[in-house]
């Protein structure tokens, strides 16, 4: 079981477990973590699953592809260096302990 911590904009912290092969977005939806809207169901089409990845983890993630890059420019909350679409973040054993910050808005 892979632990993922979601920190909401108001500071509330939730640590939940996800399965290898899922995505950070899907785990949030499955476990009722608020603030990740995921309108398009994970197709990198809506930019409403935006998260800020904790600096300690950002370099361990698979790189941003062109589509995600374009979508991130249009996310509701401001884009930062550690912005990612959580639907493009596969959950793997290597990410056990991952921390992401959920923005105050998804637009």
């Amino acid at each position: 079981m892979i632990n993922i911590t979601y920190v909401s904009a108001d500071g509330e912290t939730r640590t939940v477990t996800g399965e290898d092969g899922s995505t950070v977005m899907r785990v949030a939806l499955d476990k009722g973590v608020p603030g990740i809207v995921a309108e398009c169901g994970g197709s990198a089409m809506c930019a409403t699953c935006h998260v800020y990845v904790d600096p300690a983890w950002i370099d361990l993630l698979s790189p941003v592809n062109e589509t995600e890059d374009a979508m991130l420019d249009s996310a509701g909350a401001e884009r930062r260096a550690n912005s990612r679409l959580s639907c493009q973040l596969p959950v793997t054993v290597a990410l056990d302990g991952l921390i992401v910050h959920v923005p105050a808005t998804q637009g």
Partner: protein
Amino acid sequence: MAERVLILGGGQAGLQTAVSLRERGFAGAITLLGDEPFVPYQRPPLSKDYLVNGARFETLRLRPESFFAEAGIDLLTGRRAMEIDREGKNLRLEDGTALPYDRLVLATGTRNRGLPVPGANLAGVLSLKGAADADALRQALANAQRAVIIGAGFIGLEISAHCRSLGIETTIIEANNRAAARAVSPETSTLLLANQAAMGVEVIFGASVAGILGGAGGAAGVLLADGRRLAADVVLVCIGVLPNDDIAASAGLAVANGVIVNSRLRTTDPDIFAIGDCAIFHCVNYGGEVRLESVPNAIEQGKHVAAVITGDERDYAAMPWFWSDQGKLKLQMVGPTQIADTRVVVGDGAASTIFCFADERFIGVECINRPADFVKARRLLGAGASLSRQHLEAVGYDLKAAA
């Protein structure tokens, strides 16, 4: 306030209604009833990633099984509804059960149009609606050399891309004179066709099917009305859908190409609502009656009906949007682009945005591999921005500068 909400239809719209009711603090009973033997799941992947070998159903589920009990949502799967007793306010199921309701939400979706030609029932003639169909299609394609797809709509165009990725010789037959004619502009049809051609798919327009030809193992080919014969191991019929409004019609609710609802998504019975693919409503963005077959519409209407049921009576006005993945081509569209009287194409064939205008007013975009334009347009239109074509022209069709 209502005590019991009964949702008929375990798809995207029905699931969203249940989720949104709880999110809005509805504390009464919620029953979500579907005729498929599965937890509510997403359909878009069925014509895309789910067809790939090794795909697992678990990845499609909209919520885990545990979600429903935890949220106090009574999920009934594999149960079919037969009749709405409006006076008694209950729904009679095929097994004789009568489920009472204070509010009933019809989210019954659509069913595929059949192809009424000889041979349509042969083995190897397939259509796609649910997960079981996708499993059968995946299996059939694993052994296929040649596929004929009937219908160049979104389903046909997406599945042909998958067929080509498997090296299957693929032909699409389309009765209309362009691809996805009901949904996109001629300019986008041209780009969608170019993408199919680049993948090696032959698309025959203005053609209709006279029959499916049989061989030893089932379907062996397609006979066109003009006499041409196309060999095929697999024939996929994707020629559109019909709304499942029969149960509403039998109960005396107004239907016409779907269950007729007002701006609050209410049917002609104040305690019965209809949403998603099965509902026809007056869309302010179209300026007319529409029935939208899309995931975004199902989600937005599920949210809206939950709002209305919990006392937030407001008109439904969500801006329609849609997406389709066809091999390397990503189509994203927002706005009632079908009513445009003028279009301006920006970009080259690989990445283009078709800006759509009606009465010199910007009404939407159809974007091919230009997600940034899609998201910006969606935000602008969603915020009610009113932009003139002259203004957009003046800023060189740069949506960032236009706002």
